[in-house]
C-alpha cells in the first residue's frame, strides 16, 4: 500500500461525513435561499428572498446588533484575557488555582452562564437586592435594565465571562511556549519591565490572540441561545431572527431564513480568511 493510498484511507471516512453534513447543509441552505424547492414545484432560482430581507430595516438592525455584540464582547474579552494572562504569569501562589478556574469555566455551557447572569443582573436579581440593601433603590424598576436591554449588557457580560478564559488559556500556552528568554534579553539591554512586555512579548503573542479572537467573534456572532434568553424582542440578534423566520407558520418565508443563514456564513467566511492569514503570520 503506497503512502498516498494510506493517507487517503485514513482521511476518507472523516472527510465524507464532514463534507456531506457541512457542505451538504450549507449547499441545501444556499439552494433554498434562491427559492429552489422542487418539492413545492419551485424550480426557477431567483433572488426574491434576498430582495425581501435586504430591503427590510429589521434585518439591518439585527445584523448591526449581532456585529455590535460580537465586536464588543470579543474586544473586551481579548484585552482582559491578555491582562489576566500577564497577571497569572506573574503571581506565585494562586497561579494554579486561577488556571484551574479558567479550565473549569471552559467546561461550562454558555447557557448556564447566561442563567447565572440573568439571576445576578435582572431588576430583581442579586445586584438589585444589594442596591436596595445599600439604600440606592426602592423598587426593582429603579435598578438599571441590564438584561433584555437595548445595549445588550447582560449578553456581553455573559460572553466576556465565557470567552475571557478561552482566549486566556490560549495566551497562557502561547506565553509558556515563548519562555522568558526574549524579555530577559530586552531587560539586559536596558528595557524596563513594562517596555519588555509592551515591545517584546505583546507583539509575539498578538497573532495567536487575534486568531483566537476571530474564533470568538464568529461564535458570538452566530450563537442563538444567549440572545434568545437575554435579548430584546426588537431588534433580535441575527441568528434569533433567522430561527424565528424559519419556524414562522408561513412556509414561504423559509427561503428568507436560508438567505439569513447565507449572510451569517458570508460573515464567518471573512473570519476564516482572517484566522488562516493570522496563523500563517504567527508561524513565520
Amino acid at each position: 500500500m503506497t503512502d498516498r493510498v494510506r493517507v487517503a484511507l485514513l482521511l476518507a471516512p472523516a472527510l465524507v461525513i464532514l463534507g456531506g453534513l457541512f457542505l451538504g447543509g450549507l449547499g441545501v441552505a444556499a439552494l433554498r435561499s434562491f427559492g429552489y424547492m422542487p418539492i413545492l414545484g419551485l424550480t426557477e432560482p431567483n433572488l426574491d428572498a434576498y430582495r425581501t430581507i435586504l430591503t427590510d430595516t429589521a434585518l439591518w438592525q439585527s445584523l448591526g446588533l449581532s456585529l455590535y455584540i460580537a465586536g464588543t464582547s470579543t474586544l473586551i474579552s481579548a484585552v482582559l484575557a491578555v491582562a489576566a494572562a500577564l497577571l497569572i504569569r506573574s503571581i506565585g501562589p494562586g497561579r494554579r488555582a486561577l488556571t484551574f478556574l479558567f479550565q473549569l469555566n471552559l467546561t461550562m455551557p454558555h447557557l448556564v452562564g447566561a442563567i447565572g447572569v440573568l439571576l445576578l443582573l435582572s431588576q430583581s436579581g442579586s445586584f438589585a437586592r444589594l442596591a436596595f440593601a445599600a439604600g440606592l433603590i426602592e423598587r426593582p424598576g429603579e435598578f438599571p435594565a441590564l438584561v433584555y436591554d437595548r445595549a445588550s449588557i447582560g449578553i456581553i457580560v455573559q460572553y466576556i465571562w465565557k470567552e475571557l478564559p478561552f482566549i486566556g488559556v490560549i495566551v497562557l500556552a502561547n506565553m509558556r511556549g515563548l519562555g522568558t528568554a526574549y524579555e530577559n534579553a530586552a531587560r539586559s539591554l536596558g528595557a524596563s519591565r513594562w517596555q519588555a512586555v509592551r515591545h517584546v512579548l505583546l507583539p509575539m503573542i498578538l497573532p495567536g490572540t487575534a486568531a483566537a479572537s476571530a474564533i470568538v467573534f464568529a461564535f458570538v456572532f452566530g450563537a442563538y441561545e444567549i440572545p434568545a434568553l437575554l435579548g430584546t424582542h426588537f431588534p433580535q440578534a441575527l441568528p434569533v431572527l433567522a430561527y424565528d423566520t424559519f419556524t414562522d407558520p408561513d412556509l414561504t418565508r423559509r427561503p428568507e431564513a436560508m438567505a439569513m443563514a447565507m449572510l451569517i456564513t458570508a460573515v464567518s467566511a471573512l473570519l476564516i480568511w482572517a484566522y488562516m492569514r493570522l496563523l500563517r503570520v504567527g508561524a513565520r
Partner: protein
Amino acid sequence: MIWGKRLAALVLATALLLPLVPLAVWSFARGWRFPDLLPQAWSLRAWAYTFGDISGALGAFWQTTLIACATTVIAMAVGVPAGRALGLARFGGKAMVYLLVLAPVIVPGIATALGLHAVFLRLGLTGSVSGVVLVHLVPVLPYVILVSASLFANYNLDYERQARSLGASAWQAFWQVTRPQVAPGLVVAALFAFLVSWSQYILTLLIGSGQVQTLPLLLFSFASSGRNDIAGALAILYILPGILILLASSRHLAAGTATLGRT
C-alpha cells in the same frame, strides 16, 4: 504592587465563580422575593422535583448522555485516523483538507443546520436521536480531528519505524508502540468531545424538532418561564459532568482545552 496583583487575582477568581452562586442558592430556596438577600426558607423541593417523574430531567439527562456518547464514539472512530494523517503525513491538498476541517468550527451551526433540516426531513431523521447525533458531528468531528492532529504532530514516527524494522506488522507497531504514547491525549480529546456535544442547544432544537428533549432544552424552558429554583437545580446537574471530566483529566489538559471554548 504585590497587593495590587493579589487584589486583581481575587477579583478575577470571584468574577469567574460569581454567576454560579445564585444558581446554587436558588436551587435550595423556598420563596426568595425581592429585596431579600437570602431566601426566606430553605428547601429541597426543587431538587425533589428535578429528580421526580414529572420534570423529565432524568430522562433528558440520559438522553443527553446517550447522544454525547454516540457522537463521541463516531467522531473518535473516524476523526483520530484523519487527525493522524493531518498531523503526520505530507500530501497534496493538505491546505484544502485543513480548510474543510476548520470551516465548521467557525461557520455558526445554525447556518448548516437550517439546510440540513430540509435533508433530514426527507430522510425521516428530524425528531430522531440519530438525526441529532449526526448534526452534533458537525462541531464535534472537527474538534476531534484538530486535537488529534496536534497530538500526532508532536509524535515522533521513528518509534514506529524501529518497531517495524524489528519485525512488527504495521498494526502491531501502532497498537503496541504508538497507542500507549498517544492514549492519554486521546482520552482527554474524547472527554472534551463529549462536552462539546453535551453543550449543544440550537442544533438539537432544530433537528430534534422539539421531540428530542435534552438537558439544555429543558433548562432553557425552565429559565425562560421564570422557574429559577428548578433552573438552578438543573444547571447544577448540567455542569456536573464537565467538572468531573476536568478533575479526571487536569493532568493532561494541554491538548484539550485550547480548542474547547466552542461548546
